[in-house]
């Protein structure tokens, strides 16, 4: 691992215990920052609208991303398509703070991800299980998030992915050292990273929850299951009172163990995003890029 990757892992450590919010305009970015977002994800359409519109979904217009960079002092992230090396280079050229190589956009390469070790800018990638997370980290990702099922407002997939990943981590910890070679084969993951998990009981990078988080209770649930912070996509700006809901989710992530506070935070937030049940949808984004 080079110095750059160490620095990029360090930035993710600074985001821990925080909420990263999807925004589409400088105005939304300011609302998110004022509500306590630790970073914003700049994109032209939030996942719920990408899902509704259909068609090919690509990297956002750099001018739009720059507008958001100018509006806030917190880190700004943006998405590129899976395997789209050129989109990633463009985002690096405009000095984005973190690139999300994301299944929410249409994949540019259906088998390979970007070799992220070749970039100075950090990457976050989605993962549904431990093997997927370690493959992405092997490629140079310095932060991991669950995939969830973006744009649905249904937290069921994020829960499934986080539980699976944490369960597999516990299993790897319980193995004898001479069993790690077979475990690496089963997980289809780099051996050195499997050894790290065995020795430390966690991923070598920060692990956030993403996909379907719509309420303070959803955020607290994901923290309970081992997330180190949450991404909230469509859940905020598709709801009735975005500023209030955003601030409530931020507090819920800090004090996820305090049910009395969560009850107060959950009061009178206005309508949550309507959402769709993850099983009712046709385009399964989490299947993109394994």
């Amino acid at each position, binding site marked *: 691992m080079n110095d750059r990757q160490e620095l990029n892992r360090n930035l993710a450590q600074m985001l821990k*215990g925080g909420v990263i919010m999807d925004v589409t305009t400088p105005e939304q970015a300011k609302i998110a920052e004022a509500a306590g977002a630790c970073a914003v994800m700049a994109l032209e359409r939030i996942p719920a609208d990408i899902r509704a519109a259909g068609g090919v979904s690509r990297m956002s217009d750099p001018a739009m991303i720059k507008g958001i960079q100018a509006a806030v*002092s917190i880190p700004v992230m943006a998405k590129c398509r899976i395997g789209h090396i050129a989109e990633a280079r463009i985002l690096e050229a405009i000095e984005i703070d973190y690139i999300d190589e994301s299944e929410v956009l249409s994949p540019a390469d259906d088998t390979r991800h970007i070799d992220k070790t070749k970039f100075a800018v950090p990457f976050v990638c989605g993962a549904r299980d431990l093997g997927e997370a370690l493959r992405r980290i092997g490629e140079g990702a310095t932060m991991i998030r669950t995939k969830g099922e973006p744009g649905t407002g249904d937290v069921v997939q994020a829960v499934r992915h986080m539980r699976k990943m944490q369960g597999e981590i516990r299993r790897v910890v319980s193995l004898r050292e001479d069993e790690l070679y077979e475990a690496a084969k089963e997980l289809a993951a780099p051996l050195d990273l499997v050894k790290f998990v065995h020795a430390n009981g966690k991923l070598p990078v920060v692990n956030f929850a993403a996909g379907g988080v719509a309420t303070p209770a959803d955020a607290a649930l994901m923290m309970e299951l081992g997330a180190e912070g949450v991404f909230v996509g469509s859940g905020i700006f598709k709801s009735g009172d975005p500023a209030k809901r955003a601030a409530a989710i931020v507090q819920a992530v800090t004090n996820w163990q305090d049910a009395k506070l969560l009850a107060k935070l959950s009061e009178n937030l206005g309508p949550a995003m309507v959402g769709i049940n993850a099983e009712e949808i046709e385009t399964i984004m989490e299947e993109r890029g394994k």
Partner: protein
Amino acid sequence: MKVGVLSVQGAFAEMEAYWRRHGAETFEIRQLADLERGMDLLALPGGESTVQGKLLKDLGLFEPLKERIDGGLPVFAVCAGLILLAEKIDDPGSRDGTRPSQWFGVLPVTVKRNAYGRQLGSFTTVGTWDGHPNTPMTFIRAPAITAVQPEVEILSTFNGQPTSVRYRNITASTWHPEL
């Protein structure tokens, strides 16, 4: 020694590990009730200062912590923590180039946020800290100290600019000794 680590957002786990490595007992400060445990030192970790500052006020932690800091409780702050303590924030848009801090404002220095640029400007270096040569220093989207009052002691510098300081009960740095 008992260290209370502000744990509303950021790299508080790393800060706790740092103090435990130095033989201290640590606990997390997430809400008002946590302050009842009492502490010999308050540690303010890295993270996003805007988020930490907002949560300090939303959770009612701001006033009680300010009282303790004003009362002489030793404070150890890095990065975002330093921003929360600074008296003035560098703000090119304002009349004299600075604005008073809306946070603790107890450390007589001026701080410029994200002074080295975005994440691509983050870096590591090695320098002398408080007489200790070869101290590794990690700067993550770090602030810079652009002005200090004469009574502030400078403990380390980078390119001639102070990067950590001591003043009365406060020790603070723009880089991360805990990483």
